[in-house]
């Protein structure tokens, strides 16, 4: 519990720092005053409530969703190399959004198209990975990787066919991941699906713990493996699709945060899942704040920043201390 409290504190500190960062210099007192008085009409109130706070909340949701999704899939497959995009969610969304942009769909419709296509891709991957009434782990990985490659080819084809730098720029920006331009409306739209993902993840906690010892042993201990796999896959697909709609493709968090969380609190899902959510949220909030600050007034794609800073940091940890558990 102490470590979970420390992670919560870390997420709150990252949120506070992210609220301070922006194009207009605001003091801590001003931000605190605006936070304590929602509905204010002043410039500071509007900056805090309409720009910075939704951005922080969206980053928190994206980070938590990705980290939870990674933890669920890595736990189900007992494979530390699995990331949230294994189920084809992001690649399916990317292909659908690229095609939608190509045929001139209005930007407002893109999140819904991305979400639907992402879930559709996940269902297709799950159908291909189906064996009997359950899911075959190897087939899931193979189907996910294969379909993701196919969807990536569709994106490339769309870019080539369009021959427009604006179109290519829009797709590439989406692929690089960013929360620019997102607001409360986007968050409320996604919230029920992300919430359903969290509920399903919570439901799967005892099965995830039992699955740590292997499928056959877990089944012998009374776990309904087939049902658990479907619940975990549904949860991870909802969480990944939610994050994709809010921020495009944000790499690294879903792969690495579960490793760090397991090292901090162990692999017991009762503690590990909340630790993942808090750590993922903290990391994503901090990374998004740095992206807004480092090349201001422009923004760096969060996926690029996470790769440049996070990967070397993780490799340092990995090589110095051995494989994280």
């Amino acid at each position, binding site marked *: 519990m102490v470590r979970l409290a420390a992670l919560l504190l870390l997420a709150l500190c990252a949120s506070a720092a992210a609220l301070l960062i922006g194009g207009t210099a605001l003091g801590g007192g001003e931000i605190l005053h605006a936070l304590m008085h929602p509905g204010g009409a002043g410039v500071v109130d509007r900056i805090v409530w309409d720009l910075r706070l939704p951005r922080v909340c969206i980053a928190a949701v994206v980070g938590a969703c990705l980290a939870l999704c990674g933890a669920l899939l890595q736990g189900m497959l007992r494979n530390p190399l699995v990331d949230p995009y294994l189920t084809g969610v992001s690649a399916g969304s990317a292909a659908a959004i690229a095609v939608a942009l190509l045929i001139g769909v209005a930007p407002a419709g893109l999140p819904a198209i991305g979400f639907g296509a992402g879930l559709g891709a996940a269902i297709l991957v799950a159908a291909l990975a189906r064996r009997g009434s359950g899911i075959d782990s190897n087939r899931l990985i193979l189907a996910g990787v294969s379909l993701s490659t196919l969807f990536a080819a569709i994106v490339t084809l769309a870019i080539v066919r369009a021959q427009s730098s604006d179109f290519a720029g829009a797709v590439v920006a989406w692929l690089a991941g960013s929360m620019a331009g997102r607001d409360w409306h986007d968050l409320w739209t996604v919230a029920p699906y992300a919430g359903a993902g969290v509920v399903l993840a919570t439901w799967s906690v*005892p099965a995830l713990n039992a699955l740590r010892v292997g499928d*056959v042993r877990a*089944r*012998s201990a009374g776990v309904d493996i087939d049902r658990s796999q479907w619940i975990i896959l549904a949860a991870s697909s909802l969480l990944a699709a939610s994050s994709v709609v809010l921020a495009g493709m944000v790499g690294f968090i879903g792969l690495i945060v579960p490793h760090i969380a397991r090292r901090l609190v162990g692999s017991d899902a009762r503690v590990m899942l909340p630790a993942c959510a808090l750590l993922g949220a903290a990391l994503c909030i901090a990374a998004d704040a740095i992206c807004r600050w480092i090349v201001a007034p422009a923004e760096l794609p969060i996926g690029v920043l996470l790769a440049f800073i996070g990967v070397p940091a993780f490799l340092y940890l990995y090589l110095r201390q051995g494989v994280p558990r």
Partner: protein
Amino acid sequence: MIALKNVALTAGKRTVLEGIDATFERGAFTAVLGANGAGKTTLLRGIAGLRAPAEGSIRIDGNDVHALPATQRALRVAMIAADEVVLEGLTVREVVATGRFPHHRWWEWNERPHDREAVARALSDVDLVDFARRPIETLSSGERQRAWIALGLAQETPVLLLDEPTSHLDVRAAHDVLRLLRGLCASGKTIVCVLHDVNEAAAFADRVALIGDGGIIAAGTCDTVLERSNLERAYGIAMERVPMPDGSVRLFVPDETIGGGEDRC
């Protein structure tokens, strides 16, 4: 008691075993023997409720194991598989505590006093109390095998099924595991154990089921089952049977079957 009636078991589309009629007595240590691929593990999985029979019924104390919900089945029979990947970093205690899964509803996440007692008793029974906090991957093969057995014990089932628990173990470690299983039988557990070494079966088991030709070649006491023609039929190789002074038997492959006897140690 475990009762199999006209059971057929398949692996994919292939029928591995058929026409199996057998009973496994309560409190007995039954060794399942047979050549590689004969269907020993398939039989064990069928009894454990992990593989539904294509035909026939498998009952434990009158309950059809495949008709029971997963957690109800797991309160009656535990299967201990040896070769399976586990998540790295799990402690021995965490592994053993997995056996408490069927004793909880899904919302009951926390251990109760009885769970802690069951886990402690299981660790004590296999002599791994001092290893409780060790990561499972740091244990030797023999110690790890005892940890898997403790997982099954923590499940508190009357029936324990083991798939090749002495594979990869040295003579001493294998002996320790089999002696442990004998002790569990003495305390009332029904043990069905797949073994590769016929002499381990002859030395430790009460009864033997010899698998081959898509069914059970012979089942009964070691003395009646482990005889030359049965073994040759099961393994396709001649074996000599030597009575021991204590009344048990030992089996070995004779020189003329192996050939080149002068150059061997």
